[in-house]
């Protein structure tokens, strides 16, 4: 299994995008949850006390998993909150 070298995060519509080259600010020891936090901060997206998840190829990634445990096919994430309309 080849490990990740780069990563692209976006919101569900793909309009807010962040490309990350690993082993800079973010390394393989960072967790999925930490990378989501980094995305939200750098895009100034308010957390609104919601639960945030990342999906790769439509599959939910475990927030506690380290990037080193993901393979290079999981290089494109969609960051999605659990949110309601009123």
């Amino acid at each position: 299994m080849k490990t990740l070298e780069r990563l692209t995060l976006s919101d569900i519509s793909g309009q807010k995008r962040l490309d990350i080259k690993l082993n800079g600010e973010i390394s393989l020891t960072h967790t999925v949850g930490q990378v989501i936090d980094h995305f939200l901060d750098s895009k100034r997206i308010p957390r609104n006390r919601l639960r945030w998840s990342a999906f790769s190829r439509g599959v939910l990634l475990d927030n506690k998993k380290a990037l080193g445990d993901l393979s290079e096919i999981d290089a494109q994430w969609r960051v999605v909150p659990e949110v309601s309309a009123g």
Partner: protein
Amino acid sequence: MDATLVTDYGYRLELMPAPDGSGPPLFSRDVSAEVADLVEEALVASVLSEDVARDERAIRAEVRPVWSEPPWVAELEVRLEVERNGAAQVHSLRFGSEAWRRRALEETALLRQRGAVSQGAKVYRGLVAQRRAGGPAACALAVDAPLVADVTLEQAGVRSLFAGSLLPERPVLVNRRLVEEVLAWTVQAGKVETGGAVLGRLARLPAPLPGARTRIVTVLSAVLRDSRHAGKAAHFDFSPEALAEAAQVAELRGLGEAVITAFHSHGWQGKCADCAGGGGSDCSLPECEPSLQDYVLLESLFPGRAALLPIAGRRPAAAGQRLAFEVFAWRSGALCAIPWQLYTD
């Protein structure tokens, strides 16, 4: 798009017991940082209206107060300056106080909860500008330019245009089948809210459509419902799993679409055809307008300022057709209903 945000002022949102600002404020908070959101909205709007190129490198964004009476601000002016052939080209947008309406409503509700304001008492909002002690401040602001594909109308899946009208600077086309489905589901669901993912795209056409002044159109092409989303009265939970799957479906369709937004209904019951009319309505269903919670939905799920929010529900003021399908867009710092045109694929 990288902009340099220049501002000479700091801003405070104040809630007051009197409209003239006399007496100590009930609430006062520094909102200078939120000015960046307005600049982002101005940048995205200017790209969509083709007043600013999406690959523009050096943009100078300056925010200035338009006084009602200093220190009170009537509007904020966002001036976007780009260089064209050695000369500065300025595109300016104004933001009224509706940009602070939502925050003011949230804080007023908290004040009432805490008993700081009695239930019946009116609360007024105001924006105060104060010149920064250290002189003008400049900071870098990185904004993702809207993702727009160069396609023809046919490639965007649009066969013929029907009823409706377009906002010249933000034309929106909606598939007729999408509207029919959303309205049918809204009626079917009754007082319970329904909703789902909306597939669509931003397309730059070879020429503007009749009634538009920009070539960039937003096309809402299809809706996807999923039983993992769950609605009840005045509430609709979106399932992240279902949305992620909808994004996969959008990719598989191979039409260049994405989950561009999500729709939800505000409920409808048979008697709404009458109860929606005039004042003094006893209908408990929310009107077809974004709630405070809908702002939370849009800014977290679809954080780009090009995002649209379609809502179906009752529209009391409307004559005739009272079950409405409305499309809301970011305008002047708030979500406002904009016109749109039907198409068939």
